[in-house]
């Protein structure tokens, strides 16, 4: 095969993501069908949305019958961080030609982390190497979630408590964020606005209320947050 070297290197580097995505994807598929939704929504979402946190949150949207505008706004905020990934890849993606649209579409947290930590190997055809890495990662997520959904729909086992995988995911991501940021301000703002929204608005408006309030607080306390 023409690009087997690129494929091999991409595969080797993607192994940790493979373990993460198949397991987490599996949990997502299992969780989705545990609420009685059809199994094929899992592969469909993994193909077209392909964003872990958003897909988990989507199950909540379905459950509370959220409105489309609420879904759009909340999705935008949940994935806002992705916009900042692209910024640091503008140069890297410049000469990727016809593969560029897919590379941009497939830019998840983990893929971004791999792409930005890769050392430059002059012998590799960059754009194909990037492409394989992105495609492999998405295939892990796709296979994991499809498998979880099919298995969950056909084998009955007690999934009570499985939804905690989502809480655990966010807790872990929060810890990692704190390690990078070393700043308590944003976490305090997030917690305060969440509790406020939790107590004062209906649950289906909670997410968007907390997001808007936290943005306002973030700008009010801009100096304090930056100087901490």
């Amino acid at each position, binding site marked *: 095969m023409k690009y087997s070297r690129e494929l091999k290197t991409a595969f080797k580097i993607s192994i940790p993501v493979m373990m993460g995505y198949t397991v987490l994807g599996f949990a997502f598929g299992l969780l989705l069908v545990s609420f009685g939704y059809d199994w094929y929504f899992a592969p469909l979402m993994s193909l077209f949305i392909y964003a872990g946190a958003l897909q988990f949150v*989507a199950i909540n*949207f379905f459950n509370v019958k959220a409105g489309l505008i609420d879904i759009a706004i909340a999705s935008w905020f949940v994935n*806002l961080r992705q916009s900042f990934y692209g910024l640091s890849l*503008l140069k890297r993606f410049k000469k990727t030609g016809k593969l560029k649209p897919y590379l*941009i579409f497939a830019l998840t947290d983990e893929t971004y982390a791999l792409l930005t930590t890769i050392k430059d190997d002059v012998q590799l055809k960059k754009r194909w190497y990037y492409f394989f890495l992105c495609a492999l990662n998405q295939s892990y997520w796709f296979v994991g979630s499809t498998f979880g959904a099919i298995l969950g729909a056909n084998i009955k086992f007690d999934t009570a408590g499985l*939804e905690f995988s989502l809480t655990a995911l966010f807790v872990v991501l929060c810890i990692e964020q704190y390690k990078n940021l070393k700043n308590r301000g944003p976490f305090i703002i*997030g917690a305060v606005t969440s509790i406020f929204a939790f107590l004062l608005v209906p649950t289906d408006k909670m997410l968007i209320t907390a997001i808007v309030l936290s943005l306002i607080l973030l700008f009010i306390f801009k100096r304090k947050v930056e100087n901490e």
Partner: protein
Amino acid sequence: MSNTEIMIAIAVMSLVNLFTRIFPFLFFKKAELPSSLEFVGKYFPSIILTILIFYTLKEIDFSLYPYGIKELGAILFTIVLHLGLKNYLISIFFGTIFYMGLVQYL
């Protein structure tokens, strides 16, 4: 939601998600960012992740027995695991198993 409503919701989320990924490639060709956007970009991910933790707990009634002890316990367990072993897969997997055990057997 009905299956048609879910399909529409998936389409909306796919488009919005794609937009967040395409955004910098459309508007910031020279990789220059206004400072206020840079500020939001630096601190907002931590805020949204904190909010999402609370959002996943929104169905829990902390005023009723057992007052959310199981959830808080499982969160604490996940944190300790993660600080100790630093492996996000292990933390999520065993944190969830721990919570499922609490919910199903206690």
